[in-house]
């Protein structure tokens, strides 16, 4: 059986700058896959490639055996995305933000969309803030609302770019529980960019580490294994919280 998401030799070059080269891995259905690495190593870029927003300079990515390059509509139907900035629409309140994908992709009446939106906001603890505008809430709340919007259609794949950045440890742990809960109940596959070591150890089935200097993948595997057996100094430093 081939993997749900297959990345083959993905390469990204901006102008003359190579961000990463020949990145390959597969992600199975129901897996929580974490992408990590230092700032600027291309994590968000890789995520954008996987949803077809950025055509890879070279290489191929398939999602549920649809090619991201040529069948991007099919690919997007499978994926909910939370962007690093949250990317909430400033002119809509949180509930309208979360309802939007429902209004686009389903024939549900308006009230049903609003009800689902409130439910999803409840999952991330934002029931009270449903009628507030993105400019009226904190950075951490923006992140959580963006997660709720990514969840709106119960997509089989969720891609979260630094969901826990800016969240307090308690909320962050709650988010980890939410991820594992969705995986166990709905079989959702997760691709998560995060730096939180505790969170990685708690949720990740496998992780991939990118590095800006190496311009590519420097580690791929179960976090426990990487922690024990990795020889690469950058990988060791990350998992053992050492300074290089």
């Amino acid at each position, binding site marked *: 059986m081939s993997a749900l998401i297959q990345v083959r030799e993905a390469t990204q070059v901006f102008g003359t700058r190579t961000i990463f080269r020949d990145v390959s891995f597969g992600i199975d259905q129901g897996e929580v896959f974490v992408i990590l690495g230092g700032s600027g190593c291309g994590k968000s870029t890789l995520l*954008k490639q996987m*949803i077809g*927003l950025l055509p890879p300079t070279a290489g191929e990515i398939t999602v549920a055996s649809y090619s991201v390059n040529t069948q991007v*509509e099919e690919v*997007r*139907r499978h*994926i909910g*995305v939370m*962007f*690093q*900035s949250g*990317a*909430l*629409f*400033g*002119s809509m309140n949180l509930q309208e933000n979360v309802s*939007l*994908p429902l*209004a*686009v*992709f389903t024939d549900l009446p308006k009230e049903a969309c609003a009800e689902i939106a409130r439910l999803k906001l409840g999952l991330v603890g934002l029931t009270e803030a449903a009628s507030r505008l993105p400019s009226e809430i904190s950075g951490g709340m923006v992140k959580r609302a963006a997660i709720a919007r990514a969840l709106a259609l119960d997509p089989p794949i969720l891609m979260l770019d630094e969901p826990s950045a800016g969240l307090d440890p308690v909320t962050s742990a709650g988010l980890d529980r939410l991820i594992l809960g969705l995986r166990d109940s709905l079989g959702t596959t997760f691709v998560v960019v995060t730096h939180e070591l505790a969170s990685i150890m708690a949720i990740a089935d496998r992780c991939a580490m990118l590095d800006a200097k190496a311009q590519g993948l420097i580690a791929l595997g179960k976090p426990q294994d990487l922690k024990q057996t990795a020889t690469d100094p950058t990988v060791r430093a990350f998992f053992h919280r050492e300074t290089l």
Partner: protein
Amino acid sequence: MLALPVNLRLLRRSDFGVIAERAGLQALPLVLVLGFLIGMILAFQSAVPMRQFGADLYVADLVTIALCRELGPLLVAVILAGRTGSAYAAELGTMQVNDEISALVTMGINPTTMLVLPRIAAAMMVMPALTVAMDAAGLTGMASVLAAFGYPFSAIKAHITILSAPGDFLQGLLKGVVFAAAVALIGCRAGLTASGGPRAVGQAATAAVVGGIVATVLLDGLFAVILYRLHL
């Protein structure tokens, strides 16, 4: 293409109203003041030399044609570029660098339908109204100068040619609508192609203003040639 009706459902009337109000109603005071002053200045500047030939009442004809056919739509387009084109670029540019545009795309929503079309429509809709306001204010300014020179209002009115032959005025309106579409399109495009952080938003706004004004003048030249060929 199939997604279009779905997208149109998302065009929110309230959004359109806000966009149109900002582009139109909020520009009105500036348009009126500028129009009145330009009318006065034009009338005064041309009345002094024309007086040597005893033709100073013909200033009314001159200013009417200059204003309604050329300056009115041109000045309103410049105001639109400075106020609205730059605002479109900044709004869409912020959405672009904030990944909101990407979020729309991943939701299967076409940003052009949801963001660009209503903005172009709003600009094209407010443009004739603003042009009429500019023309009216300018003619009032001109009339007040001539009145100060001692001409009775009825005599001035007889020389405001568009009242009997509105061709020049209608040409101006038509040109204005085309200018508005160009200014709005260039503003939106500058915003959507912004990349690389907050600085890009400022650059997009600048590009929108410069591009909007240049496009307006080029289109105006094109109109001059075409209308001349058509003997209008």
